[in-house]
């Protein structure tokens, strides 16, 4: 035990089985492998391994996608914190929201971060889509990632819409009344939509009924929207975000071949 000095501790840690099981490092530490360790790691290098100078310019990609993702992270964090105080029941929902604004320490800034972050996320998704469209980045071989992006857009809207009801004020109730009444006109599965009478759709068995948990916006609706907002939609969105990022790394940036400098 002669070499048990403080100097050897880092070496011992790095060579331990625990360390090696986490940071799999079976390769020789040459220049190439050190590069690969960075470029193959999604946390160090979320961008594609090979990317042109033009493609990484801010004026090309506007950072819109990654800003959207940061907003999603902020919304997840602040949303989880809001869940500690907010109870999705008719007698409490509105007053819990007011408590968060006026009584809970830092509650107002959390609620406002969540609220304005949500608006910003919807906006940035649209900016991101516009940029993707104007730079022709939706064209092959990236056409599938555009489709994934449209799915992400829809789930962003669904998150925004379901979160809209949760303050349980007049604006929330009537906005969701209006929004879900549009679902009445869904073809086949909405009771006022085309072909719905063929399969016997009524006000108490169509898609709007399933969404509301009743025939009008009420306590069942608040609970359903809460569960979908906090668990259902974020999980599905996360799955598609993973696919979206994976495809960006696989397919590369479209800015590799600039049309004109």
């Amino acid at each position: 035990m002669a070499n048990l000095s403080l100097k050897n501790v880092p070496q011992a840690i790095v060579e331990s089985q625990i360390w090696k099981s986490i940071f799999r490092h079976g390769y020789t530490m040459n220049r190439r492998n050190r590069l690969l360790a960075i470029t193959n790691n999604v946390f160090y290098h979320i961008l594609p391994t090979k990317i042109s100078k033009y493609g990484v310019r801010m004026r090309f990609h506007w950072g819109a996608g990654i800003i959207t993702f940061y907003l999603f992270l902020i919304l997840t964090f602040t949303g989880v914190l809001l869940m500690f105080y907010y109870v999705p029941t008719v007698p409490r929902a509105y007053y819990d929201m007011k408590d968060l604004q006026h009584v809970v320490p830092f509650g107002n800034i959390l609620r406002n971060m969540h609220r304005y972050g949500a608006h910003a996320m919807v906006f940035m998704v649209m900016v991101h889509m516009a940029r993707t469209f104007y730079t022709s980045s939706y064209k092959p071989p990236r056409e599938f990632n555009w489709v994934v992006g449209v799915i992400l857009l829809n789930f962003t809207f669904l998150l925004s819409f379901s979160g809209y009801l949760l303050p349980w004020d007049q604006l929330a109730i009537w906005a969701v009344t209006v929004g879900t009444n549009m679902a009445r006109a869904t073809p086949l599965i909405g009771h006022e939509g085309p072909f719905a009478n063929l399969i016997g759709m009524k006000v108490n068995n169509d898609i709007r009924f399933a969404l509301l948990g009743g025939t009008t916006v009420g306590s069942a609706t608040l609970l359903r929207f809460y569960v979908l907002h906090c668990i259902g939609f974020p999980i599905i969105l996360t799955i598609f975000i993973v696919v979206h990022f994976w495809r960006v790394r696989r397919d590369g940036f479209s800015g590799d071949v600039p049309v004109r400098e």
Partner: protein
Amino acid sequence: MARAAGALSAEEHATRRRLLSFLGWGSFVSFFSGVTIGSLRFFFPRILYEPSQQFIAGKPEDYQVGEVSTRMKKEQRVWMIRDQMGIYALISVCTHLGCTPIWHSTENRIKCPCHGSNFLVDGQNVAGPAPSPLFRAAISLDLAGNIVVDKSQKENQPGKRDEPPFILPLS
């Protein structure tokens, strides 16, 4: 053994492997389709704890001729309106997207705050995006002489809506 190349013999068709494969995939598919159908059915409750669609709205003499009464509106979303013919219960659910319109007595109009639809006192849609007139609920008298309104039965077509049970005729 004279048969076409690639075709399976009777024994080969009924191997143990094929049977087990059928059973395996069959149970896999039936399990997950059962889970899917059950989960979807789960979202359609059998019992609703929603308020009754029927309510009592006082006596006929509580309403004056020419009056648009808002006394039942907050709880029942219904205007009680008495004209020369009788009393009818106009449901205050906008036929556009379901907001609650407001009665403006100074303008003799019913207006929806959400998207600006206008209605006359008889329920006729006259402006804005509403595609059809407001509905009237079925209205009748019980044995004690109280007005009973039933919102589950409703009508908005001129002619039909001016006849019982959608109007309570009073002389």
